[in-house]
């Protein structure tokens, strides 16, 4: 079954609707937030810019629906390679402290942007989507990840983009790759035991990493802990005992220092109350007190303006995308489509949860955007492409004679090796795929 680009399936319409709601929320937030002290300076202008990007992103999404996700899939590896190549100049810029004539000029000490004229690009945002596509493409017919050794291969492949993004430095984007990988492996049927071992291993290595990350990154993590006034008091009273968590100075200056953004983000959300302060109203909408309130901290502004109701609407919109993504994954018989849908749902779900979690003080503050809502072209475009791929999966269901993929029987006594589920047919031989 193949539908035309504008004939959406039911979950497709759901995703489309949720994305529209989120984009609209983002636009009206950007419209009322000025990034400078002069009121009316750039809020509307930024919203106009963002609106243009939304149009472009819709176009990109429509094109993807038009060609179908399978056509994109054929270029999975080249696409992944190209985005990796895009990271290379940033890597060199970071190491050599040059900006290649302004192309890779750093912002706030991080080399994340390629300043193409009129089109600044954040390759790590694009990379996330390309990574999901490539990983789905890699895993689609394999089953070696069911063994521990085979499981290592996707992890090793993932190390390359993670390492390159880490060096920018962009801890958050690098770290979001790992949960996506775990989710995709888990849904592809990797043994839960193996994944658990790897997760535990990672947790065990955390103290080592703790010493390796930058001071400001550590401070961001401890800033979440220091929300507790009791802990702050304890650090101030016995600084030598809590040396690993924070210095006495960090504890004393928490509110004006490492905790500044968090304190104000919580103030903004909490002061929204049930109904919120109203569109364009409220302290945090009208002042520039909360940094990054039109991109990374846009959720604080949503909570501030529209209160608990607005926050719930936003969360529900994301939930609709994620649940629809999982429904699409479950409905399609195409193994690549399945993994792609799960990967994209995971990417959007994890990123939105991490972003909201940081604004409410449950997770460390990281430079992660709220998909579809935050100001910024790269993030918007890549998430639109991802959503379009998701819808495209639901629209193109190959007729498969073979059974559904990734259906492995539970290990039972007397089954020494993994066997495919009933009627497993190697999809290379599937005529359906060839016909796409």
């Amino acid at each position, binding site marked *: 079954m193949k539908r035309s680009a504008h004939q959406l399936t039911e979950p497709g319409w759901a995703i489309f609707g949720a994305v529209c709601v989120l984009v609209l929320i983002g636009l009206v937030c950007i419209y009322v937030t000025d990034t400078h*002290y002069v009121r009316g300076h750039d809020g509307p202008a930024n919203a106009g810019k963002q609106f243009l990007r939304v149009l472009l992103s819709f176009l990109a999404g429509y094109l993807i629906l038009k060609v179908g996700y399978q056509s994109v899939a054929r270029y999975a590896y080249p696409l992944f390679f190209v985005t990796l190549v895009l990271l290379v100049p940033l890597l060199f810029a970071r190491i050599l402290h040059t*900006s290649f*004539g*302004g192309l890779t*000029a750093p912002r706030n000490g991080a080399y994340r942007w390629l300043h193409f004229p009129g089109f600044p690009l954040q390759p790590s945002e694009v990379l996330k989507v390309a990574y999901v596509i490539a990983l789905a493409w890699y895993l689609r017919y394999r089953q070696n990840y069911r063994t521990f050794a085979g499981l290592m291969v996707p992890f090793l492949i993932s190390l390359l983009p993670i390492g390159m993004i880490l060096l920018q430095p962009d801890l958050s984007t690098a770290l979001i790759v790992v949960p996506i990988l775990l*989710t995709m492996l*888990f*849904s592809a*049927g990797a043994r839960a035991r193996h994944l658990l071992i790897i997760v535990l291993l990672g947790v065990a290595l955390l103290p080592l990493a703790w010493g390796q990350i930058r001071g400001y990154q550590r401070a961001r993590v401890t800033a979440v802990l220091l929300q507790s006034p009791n802990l702050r008091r304890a650090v101030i009273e016995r600084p030598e005992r809590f040396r690993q968590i924070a*210095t*006495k*100075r960090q504890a*004393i*200056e928490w509110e004006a220092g490492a905790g500044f953004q968090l304190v*104000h983000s*919580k*103030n*903004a*959300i*909490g*002061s*929204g*109350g*049930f109904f919120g302060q109203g569109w364009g109203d409220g*302290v*945090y909408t*009208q*002042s520039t*007190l909360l940094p990054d309130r039109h991109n990374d901290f846009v959720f604080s502004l949503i*909570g*501030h303006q529209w*209160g*608990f109701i607005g*926050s*719930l609407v936003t*969360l529900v919109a994301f*939930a609709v995308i*994620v*649940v629809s993504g*999982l429904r699409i*994954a*479950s409905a399609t018989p195409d193994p690549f489509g*399945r993994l792609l849908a*799960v990967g994209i749902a*995971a990417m959007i*779900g994890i990123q939105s*949860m991490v972003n*909201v*979690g940081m604004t*409410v*003080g*449950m997770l460390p503050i990281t430079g992660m955007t709220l998909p579809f809502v935050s100001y910024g072209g790269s993030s918007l475009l890549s998430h639109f492409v991802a959503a379009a791929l998701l819808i495209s999966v639901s629209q193109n269901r190959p007729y498969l004679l073979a059974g*559904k*993929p*990734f*259906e*492995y*029987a*539970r290990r039972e006594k007397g089954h020494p090796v993994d066997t495919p*589920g009933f009627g497993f047919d190697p999809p290379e031989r599937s005529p359906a795929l060839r016909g796409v």
Partner: protein
Amino acid sequence: MFERRLRILLVFVGLGAAALVLRLAQLQLVHADYYRARASSSLILTPSQIPFVRGRILDRTGLVLVRDEACWDIAIDYEVLAVVSQDGSESGNDPRALHNLGSAAETTAEAESFLRLARRLKRAGRYPPETSDAGCVELLREELASTWAELARFSARLSPESVDELRERGAAIHGRIMHIRRAVAKRRGFDAPIAEEMETHTILGGLDADAQIDARVRFARFPWIHVRPSWHRRFSEDITPLTHVLGRIGRVTADDVREDPFGEDPFATYRANEWLGVSGVEWAAEATLRGRRGQITRDRDGHVIAAQSFPALDGDDVTLTIHAELQRRLYDLLGESVRMIPESAGGALVVLHVPSREVLALVSFPSYDANRFAEIHATLADDTERLPFWFRAVASRYPPGSTIKPLVCLAGLMNGRISTTSREHCSGRLFDDVADRWRCWQVDGTSIRKAHGDVDVVEALTGSCNVFMYRLGEALGVDSLCSAFDMAGIGRASGLGLREEVVGINPTPSWLMENKNARATPGTARLFAIGQGELAMTPVQVANLLSTYASGRFRPVSLIRNVTPTPEWTLPVTSAQWQAVRRGIYGVVNDPNGTAYKYARFDHPRWALCGKTGSATAHPWPTAYRIPFADENGESHEAIVRAGSQSSAMERFRRDHPAVTFDPGAVVVAARWPDTPSQHGEEHSHAWFGGFLQPRDSSGMVDWSRPAPIAFAVLVEFGGSGGRTSGPLARDVAATLVDVFGADLNVDAGGVAWGISREVDR
């Protein structure tokens, strides 16, 4: 299996979403009020404090002597100041050094601070984004160099200062702030920037309206230079006679912060950029003159939050008891007298209102123009002969000489050693067989020109008979003398409350033992009885002593009006005894035998000048020191350093020649003042005259029943004989008093505006 795993994933999503929703409910539903309150208060910026205007100082007639005047300051951002201050003087002075970034001479800290500032300016868009860090640092260095050059050029119209001087001042501000930061860090337990580091700091002050417009234009291209409104202390015109009394203000130092009397009040505590009184009335009346800072709180939109803002409380005015016109005229009179005597370095003149002991004039000569202090300071400090900074009227003590004799007679009368009728014989010397010591004052050398013969108390005072006093002093003993001195307030603070004040010495036996390791002998008592020896008084104390003679009561003096009256006491002397002593004092001026009859006779129908002359032994003071030293080649040299004391001479030499070493033991006095021997005898002496104006009745006779309104003391340093030098001056003082206060000598009658305009409003 795939479906099941998806369901498991869904459970994870559900758990995460539930956690977020719960957290949102906690923030937005449970604690909404708390966060709403925090949100509205978070908009408010840290309040800033508004400076106050320091109170004015007025004279007793309401003339404004000193006040704060609006002006503009050129201020510089602290971070620029900090960078420049770390910049060594070598690289700062040498224009070539501006370009050799990264040379070995530079410290890493300095390079870092430059780099930090350059990067910040680049981020702010001052330098093109494609410029390298090193390029930005170079641009910054050039800009800072031209900032200082421009400041130096601009300062030419105020008080010319070189780039080095300005940089030094910047370094001093930086040093002061680092000093305070260290103190704060010690208290807090960790080092962190303090508020002063976020502020701008005055580098050039006192600009008038034209100058500030010019400055704004000139410095517009430097964002770290600010021209801001301010206040500066402005003395009235022709303030020289009052300079010592008014005193000066100075920058708050770390010591002031440590011993802050206003430490409890956050709006009155001393802050690093403030001024405070350091001398004179400015210091003494600091608590009154000082105001209380206001506060202005704004939200981030710049709106003032009225509930958290209040205006500054300006300091209160201080009214002095000084009569400015009298002070000026007496200053001129004293100056004339001092100039007539070549070896005289200066003098003092104090006029008191007897009933209230208010100081009507407190003159020190020489003085200087307080408005030009900055430019003339160095020249004045070099004048070690005349010592213009010395507040002689309160800060120097002299033996009171014969002015003490009435008190000695009173002591004798109180103790019953003598009576008003008892007589002593004066043969010109105390011991017939000792020719060169214990002589009467009129004996020149060993030949007796005139002995006093048999004298009673009145005649002894009129003729200032030493022999009478020697015998009386010996009979009383040091103990009795000193208790009488104590009754007259000798050795006590005068009550002025000035920090310059030196308290006189009442040399009791215990004082002698403690300070001189000497016993009180009959000889000591004889010396004290003629006002010599260790006995020492300031001019203001002698004036108060004369007030005590005139009124019969002791009372501390006061310099500031409307303060609680100081306690007073009456001396246990009968009126008959007072009568005898006062007649003696009257005779000094008005009796042909009186020591001042020839010089100080004051013929006025309503007022009789009574007084006592005095000559106090004086020792020339050192004005320069000879310091032998060896240069680096081993050749020995000598330096003559102008200084008033050996320690300040050595300190000055070390400052000028830091590399040279010398032997402190070999430093000797090179010159003294006066450098000529005395004209009037073998020893130098200071000339005293203490007097008061006694009313006459309609027949011209002295009316002892009415109180004397005004007393005064005159001192001319190295003036020789009290009668000859200070006598005529005392007569002129009396005439001036009658002229200024009218024939009634009403000290509260409105004076005449004299040289300065009277102001009602600020």
